[in-house]
């Protein structure tokens, strides 16, 4: 099984869980079976067409209306194959969806367009999920706006995140590394920018990550930079060119201290208070040229240290 998954990295991404390798085995079986049936059907098709090409006009053809035995056979054989792959797929699906009893539980909140992960000890992380190697991890997911989908190709696992209810997904990573996390259910303008990472680290590193204060020893600016990288980066850029249509929100470049024209025609001085308001109540003062209702509120998502850090970080973007 494992050899199959390592030789075929061209067809599938790296398999970071055992179940992923199981999915791959089934997929390769399906690929081989598909290839054989395609060769049989398409090969037969081409062979017959060429072999029996018209040699002269008015050529007589055989009158073969049907052949019950043959037709039964080529109905029954696909049926058997379909049932085999169905049952196999069922087993794999059962493994993918049987939730572990004593896993590490992480709450996942999706919103346009980022992921928030909350651990049981209250530690929060934006955009990056850090998990220990070799442990069952159960994600309990919900959305605060529209449908999203939590998709990590390396785990061969995916689950839509539905507002108003919880869905769950579990995995047990067997290889350290940093894996891509995609949003796979269409969710609007920055759907393709709703990316994240799943970092699989050693037990020790994870304990350190979880146990330490998230921002221990960091300056406010560094805290802000981290928050920016998880929460803001999809929509707000750092250079003078990062404006619409590239980014949905205004750039942070030279933002602090300037006079901003608002959609209602007034202007506002960009100071700490304005920035704070724009984070927790983004629709109160919308910058001219941008739309209200695009940015969700971060009240409750970010704590005061993080907001403060973010403001300090924005001050430094010049």
């Amino acid at each position, binding site marked *: 099984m494992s050899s199959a998954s390592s030789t075929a990295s061209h067809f599938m991404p790296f398999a970071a869980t055992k179940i992923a390798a199981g999915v791959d085995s089934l997929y390769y079986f399906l690929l081989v079976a598909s290839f054989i049936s395609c060769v049989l059907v398409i090969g037969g098709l081409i062979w017959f067409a060429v072999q029996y090409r018209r040699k002269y006009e008015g050529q007589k053809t055989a009158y073969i209306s049907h052949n019950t035995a043959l037709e039964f056979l080529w109905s029954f054989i696909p049926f058997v194959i379909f049932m085999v792959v169905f049952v196999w797929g069922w087993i794999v699906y059962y493994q993918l969806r049987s939730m572990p009893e004593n896993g590490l539980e992480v709450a996942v909140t999706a919103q346009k367009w980022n992921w928030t992960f*909350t651990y049981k000890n209250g530690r929060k992380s934006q955009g990056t999920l850090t998990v220990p190697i070799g442990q069952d991890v159960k994600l*309990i997911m919900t959305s605060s706006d529209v449908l999203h989908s939590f998709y990590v190709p390396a785990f061969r696992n995916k689950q839509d995140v539905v507002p108003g209810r919880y869905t769950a997904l579990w995995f047990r990573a067997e290889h350290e590394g940093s894996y891509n996390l995609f949003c796979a259910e269409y969710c609007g303008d920055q759907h393709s920018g709703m990316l994240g990472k799943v970092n699989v680290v050693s037990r020790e590193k994870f304990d350190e990550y979880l146990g330490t204060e998230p921002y221990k020893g960091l300056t406010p600016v560094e805290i802000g930079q981290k928050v920016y990288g998880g929460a803001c980066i999809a929509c707000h850029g750092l250079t003078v060119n990062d404006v619409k249509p590239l980014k949905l929100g205004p750039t942070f470049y030279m933002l602090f201290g300037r006079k901003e024209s608002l959609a209602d025609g007034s202007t506002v001085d960009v100071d700490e208070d304005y920035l704070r308001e724009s984070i927790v109540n983004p629709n109160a003062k919308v910058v001219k040229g941008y739309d209200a209702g695009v940015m969700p509120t971060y009240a409750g998502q970010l704590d005061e240290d993080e907001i403060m850090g973010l403001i300090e970080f924005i001050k430094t973007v010049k």
Partner: protein
Amino acid sequence: MSSGGHDSHIPLKTYFNILVALLILTVVTVAAARVDFGAFNTIIALGIASAKAFLVLGWFMHLKFDDKIYWVMFGTSIFGLVLLYFFSVLDIYTRIMQISPL
């Protein structure tokens, strides 16, 4: 088309009888709704409604005297609805989650 005379052979009296039956069933369904049968409330109400529907279909719409294909068509549409209901409910009532509210 008079040749078939399909519907003409339902006597007038039958139509009036059907109406009386429908009105009686309406009274019954209202009366039944005033008594609480618990979980059976819906089933009883829908059962009476279906009896009324049968009368309307069979006589007013003269399905009873028509080609069987019309029953098939009507049945198909009901079957489609049963499918929609069955599979939607199959999903909704088998969503199992061992939720920890953290």
